[in-house]
């Protein structure tokens, strides 16, 4: 019993109870310290984004203010940065390369990932569902450099054989690769959006005698519209910003494509390919950073719109 009273009398009694209320103990200060620490870490995300914008701009700003002719930069397709006498910096062809590849990729990926998402979310059940979800997740994890490698050594010979073309590194190749890359991510975002539609919507429609497909078409898809659109936008952003795969699979020729068999070059790939040989601080180097600013701003807008669209559904 001796221990008992000792253990229990560890606390102040009656008159001294309130003294504790004024005493900030060790734990009180630790709590405040942690609150500050996690706050700093929380805002670090904002700081990093600002940091990215700041440092990319810092390196590229010289060109933007001194030499850049916006019309020439955005509206001419002539890109010859290593021309010692008269280097030309027109990114129109590069933008066309990025746009054609991303566009084709979305053409491939959007219908298929939407279909796959509908199948996984609405038709598949039990084991099938689990296995498919895991597969999709694993496919989304394949690194982009591996995709580029696949485009280079597997798709390339296949396209040459199937379409009887001299070079298989082209819009089609990169589009398919990028489509296969983006599809798993879009599938899982779309599936999340479909799953977020409350079951009572489905039950209500089924109770009125609608078939499963009618329920999906008339109830689930409209309700998940914003989430699906947000997913597509994120896929676009993903394709737009993809670097290694398009670097390896497009053929890397500055060119406004006339057909899907033309080789092109993307904005991202240009930076990756040329930054290594550009002199730090030189004009070419600054131009590459200027492209970086452009990429940053475009993806920022895409992500912002995707976020606003998805948020719209939560509020509605």
């Amino acid at each position: 019993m001796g221990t008992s009273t000792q253990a229990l009398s560890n606390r102040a009694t009656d008159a001294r109870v309130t003294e504790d209320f004024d005493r900030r103990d060790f734990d009180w200060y630790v709590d405040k310290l942690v609150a500050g620490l996690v706050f700093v870490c929380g805002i670090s995300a904002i700081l990093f984004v600002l940091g990215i914008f700041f440092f990319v701009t810092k390196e590229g700003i010289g060109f933007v203010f001194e030499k850049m002719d916006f019309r020439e930069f955005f509206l001419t397709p002539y890109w010859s940065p290593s021309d010692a006498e008269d280097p030309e910096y027109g990114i129109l062809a590069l933008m066309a390369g990025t746009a054609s590849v991303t566009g084709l990729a979305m053409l491939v990926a959007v219908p298929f990932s939407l279909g796959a998402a509908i199948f996984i979310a609405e038709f598949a059940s039990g084991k099938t569902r689990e296995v498919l979800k895991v597969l999709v997740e694993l496919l989304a994890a394949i690194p982009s450099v591996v995709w580029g490698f696949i485009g280079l050594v597997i798709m390339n010979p296949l396209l040459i054989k199937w379409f009887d073309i001299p070079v298989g590194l082209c819009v089609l190749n990169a589009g398919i690769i990028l489509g296969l890359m983006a599809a798993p991510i879009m599938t899982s975002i779309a599936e999340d959006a479909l799953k977020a539609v409350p079951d009572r919507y489905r039950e209500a429609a089924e109770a009125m005698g609608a078939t499963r497909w009618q329920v999906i078409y008339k109830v689930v898809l409209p309700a998940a519209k914003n989430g699906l659109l947000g997913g597509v936008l994120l896929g676009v952003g993903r394709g737009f910003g993809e670097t290694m795969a398009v670097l390896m699979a497009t053929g890397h020729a500055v060119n406004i494509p006339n057909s899907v068999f033309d080789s092109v070059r993307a904005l991202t790939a240009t930076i990756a390919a040329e930054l290594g040989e550009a002199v730090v601080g030189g004009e070419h180097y600054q131009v590459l950073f200027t492209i970086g600013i452009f990429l940053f701003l475009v993806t920022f807008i895409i992500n912002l719109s995707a976020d606003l669209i998805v948020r719209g559904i939560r509020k509605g």
Partner: protein
Amino acid sequence: MATANPTMFQASDLNQHNERVQRRYQLLFGLMTLLLITPVLLILGTLVVKGGGAISWEFLLTAPTDGMRTGGVFPALLGTIWLVTVALLLSVPIGVFAAIYLSEYAGDNWFTRMINLAIINLAGVPSIVHALFGLGAFVLFFRFGTSILAASLTLAVMTMPVVIVATRESLQAVPQAFREACWNMGATRWQTIRRVVLPNSITGILTGVILEVSRTAGETAPIMFTGAVFFTPFLPQSVFDQTMALSLHLFVAATQVPGMAEEIPFGVALVLIALVLTMNSVSIAFRMWLRGKKKW
């Protein structure tokens, strides 16, 4: 089937029709899913077939020889381990704390929305822009040079959203009632987090960390100009050294080295994929095991 009631007959007819339509759509979407997954599996199968021959202990544990045309991938493998380890040492603590802030402290206001938007953007900014940032900030401005430190910092900033999102999710899976019970007993926020919230979400956080290992190991563009090099005869001794890396090694082997035996790049690709997918599988398995082990 006695007297054929016409209305009943119609109803069952309609049902049959509906069922047919139903089955047709199920088939259609199932096929789309299959079309999405099969090519990838075929491609992966090709990689395994073509690269499998290259894989051996020797391939994993020796350096490239003869101008990278023969030999193994050891320096690249080791370099990737360096890069991933240092990147995680930096991003996991910050990421977990950031997630704790978002889940346990932040209110529902514009400021929190800004942070969330920033996280989405960190994940969404092109990897090559991260590379430019790493070059401008860590290599040049902070004068770390092209080094493991600069490359890992770049990777850390880029993949931190993975840890944040996974951690926030597993923290939010802990019911609010537990926190309130704890607060009511006089526990501070931090005591509550440490004694109740974290012990019940630590496995979920680990899942996110493993996922980040996989993401970090596969990235190429962010390390190209910040710390990874095509070839170096030296193994890294500290974070201020340059290093080879598996992902970049694949790019180099596939595009920059003429006359390399074909199975070597396939072997490199296979090692990289195996590393990434193993990590992902572990993370998924972990998550499933967790789901079957409810504590409330």
